[in-house]
């Protein structure tokens, strides 16, 4: 059970031929980065079992999650938790914060007494920088954007999962709190052995918190590997564009030296070939046939013909390059 892959999956269209594997015995933080519509959220939904892949499977502790029933299913539901990006969508406006946090406590029987339940709630809220006495009893519309987002994180902390899928958990909080919350997530991984899939477009925080990174574009893996290498020496033109587009809090650095090609590339769907083809400044004839993954080093791979001097690596082996 320990050495079995915690998770692995393959699927098509919104997400094309993606395989990942997280090992329970080696808890890690993996970042999945990419722009909106790149399939990041689809990946999260798949891993949580909210949607089913059209082909391929997602295994949790060796079992196909679509087949989980009864007690196994309940365990999966508790052990795999999510924090979603949009704090405006998730909360039922008629429930107070207390209710939002009490329900999971009751459902998964996390506390023996009312007192204990209260303590747990308070602890989780404090960990995300909220004052329980101010927040409990309020309705979602009485909270600011960042406060709602943090309630989401608190809820996940409360459940102490084995695997946490965090989809843009801190996009609406300030830098200082962002640091504190990410630090909390990091200690969750370190001290409680929780693996975290950190889905984000924020490469700076990814760089600080994660060990490895997978960069998606239109559902396909563009580049992957060790977070330091990929962010400091990106090899795929898309990763290069992403990193160049980071708005640095540094006045001597100008935002986006490279031009963004094909603004409305949003519209052109390309069925064959490299997904980045319509926007790529280096696009070549051969790019109309989908490039395989080339292994550039022990901990880096890119799916781009500019790298075709390197050996290829099958996508289902990609996880082996990801350090934990």
């Amino acid at each position, binding site marked *: 059970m320990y050495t079995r892959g915690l998770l692995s999956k393959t699927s098509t269209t919104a997400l094309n031929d993606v395989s990942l594997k997280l090992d329970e015995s080696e808890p890690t933080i993996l970042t999945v980065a990419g722009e909106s519509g790149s399939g990041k959220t689809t990946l999260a939904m798949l891993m949580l079992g909210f949607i089913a892949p059209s082909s391929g499977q997602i295994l949790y502790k060796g079992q196909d999650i679509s087949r989980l029933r009864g007690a196994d299913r309940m365990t999966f539901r508790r052990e795999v938790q999510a924090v979603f990006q949009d704090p405006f969508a998730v909360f039922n406006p008629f429930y107070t914060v207390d209710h939002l946090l009490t329900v999971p406590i009751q459902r998964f029987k996390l506390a023996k007494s009312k007192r204990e339940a209260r303590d747990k709630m308070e602890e989780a809220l404090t960990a995300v920088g909220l004052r329980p006495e101010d927040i409990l009893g309020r309705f979602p519309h*009485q909270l600011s954007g960042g406060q709602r987002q943090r309630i989401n994180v608190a809820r996940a902390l409360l459940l102490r999962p084995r695997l946490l899928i965090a989809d843009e958990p801190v996009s609406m909080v300030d830098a200082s709190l962002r640091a504190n919350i990410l630090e909390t997530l990091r200690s969750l991984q370190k001290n409680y052995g929780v693996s975290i899939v950190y889905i984000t477009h924020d490469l700076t925080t990814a760089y600080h918190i994660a060990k490895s990174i997978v960069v998606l574009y239109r559902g396909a893996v563009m580049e992957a590997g060790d977070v330091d290498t990929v962010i400091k020496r990106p090899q795929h033109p898309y990763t290069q564009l992403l990193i160049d587009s980071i708005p640095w809090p540094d006045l001597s650095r100008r935002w986006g030296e490279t031009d963004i090609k094909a603004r409305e590339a949003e519209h052109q769907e390309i069925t064959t070939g490299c997904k980045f083809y319509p926007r790529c400044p280096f696009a070549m004839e051969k790019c109309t046939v989908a490039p395989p993954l080339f292994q550039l080093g022990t901990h880096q791979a890119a799916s781009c013909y500019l790298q075709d001097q390197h050996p290829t690596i099958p996508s289902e082996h990609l996880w082996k390059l990801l350090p934990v």
Partner: protein
Amino acid sequence: MKPVLQVLNLLVTYYTDAGRAKALDDVSLTLNAGEKLGLVGESGSGKSTMALAMMRMIKPPGRIEGGQVIVDGTELTKLSDEEMLKARLSKIAYIPQGAMNSLNPVLRIGRQMVDAIKAHDDEASRRTIEERCMEALESVDLKRSVFKMYPHELSGGMKQRVCIAIGILLNPKVIIADEPTSALDVVTQRQVMETIDRVQEQLGAAVILIGHDMGLMAQFVDKVAVMYAGRLAEVSIVRDMFTDPKHPYAQALIRSLPSLENKGVFQGIPGLAPSLLRIPSGCAFHPRCPYRMDVCTTVRPELETLSNGRQVACHLYTEGLTDAGANGIQERHQSVYARPAVKDIDNRT
């Protein structure tokens, strides 16, 4: 230059079951045409409230309890509800936090844009209105065909640009964008910000950008205003804010920014933001401030303009301190910030 926006002593309170929350506590601000101001500050510090108050869109249990908002010579706070309705979009436009998710999913974009105009101007002909919508779409870099589309047919970045298009339909003098890009990836962010930039130039409008992304601020705005617990702590031009922040909270905020140089160093500001129900006496930041002096716990520091033009609300810079005293403080700054509480997280497993 005559300011296009003046906010004077704005006060907003939310009447909650637990008591009165002072969400905006005597905030004043001016902005010139063509200027871009970044409004930053801790989550819950009152940024959105400030925007809503300027729009007179605070809903009960919230109430504007005092102050004035003057846009382009018109005192919004004096207008009747009906006049205010017209002023929205034509004088001052607001692109709310999470706006792109508030587009109605069952209505075509065009219909939502037309409705927005009609709410303000029921005389214009259908043709004129539609033409105006198309032009607005084009000015945010969208095709005219978007007019006939439904929200789900658009990407996040496109939806956000639709919201900007709606905001500029009636050529406002002030545009307030509340975290317009926090849900978008960096590439799309860049496109959206470039769009706002261009639109602003066309209209000669002033822009208030609310957000947490200091990188975005550094790259986009001219001036930064830092809020803390419903008050302004510091207002500085962007260069000063990033290279030499004055207010201890602003300093801590700038220090907490991640960079590629100091991997694994997370420096949040210790302590919790204060409850707005019980704002600390004196300076609201005093329980968390490393330079707290006795006076800080009793006397509230006002936002004052220093001799070098910086605006700061902190007793460290209050007059009465001799030059030597002020220098001494500067030195203390240096020493405290020279040894940041670095947490090493690099031995990750």
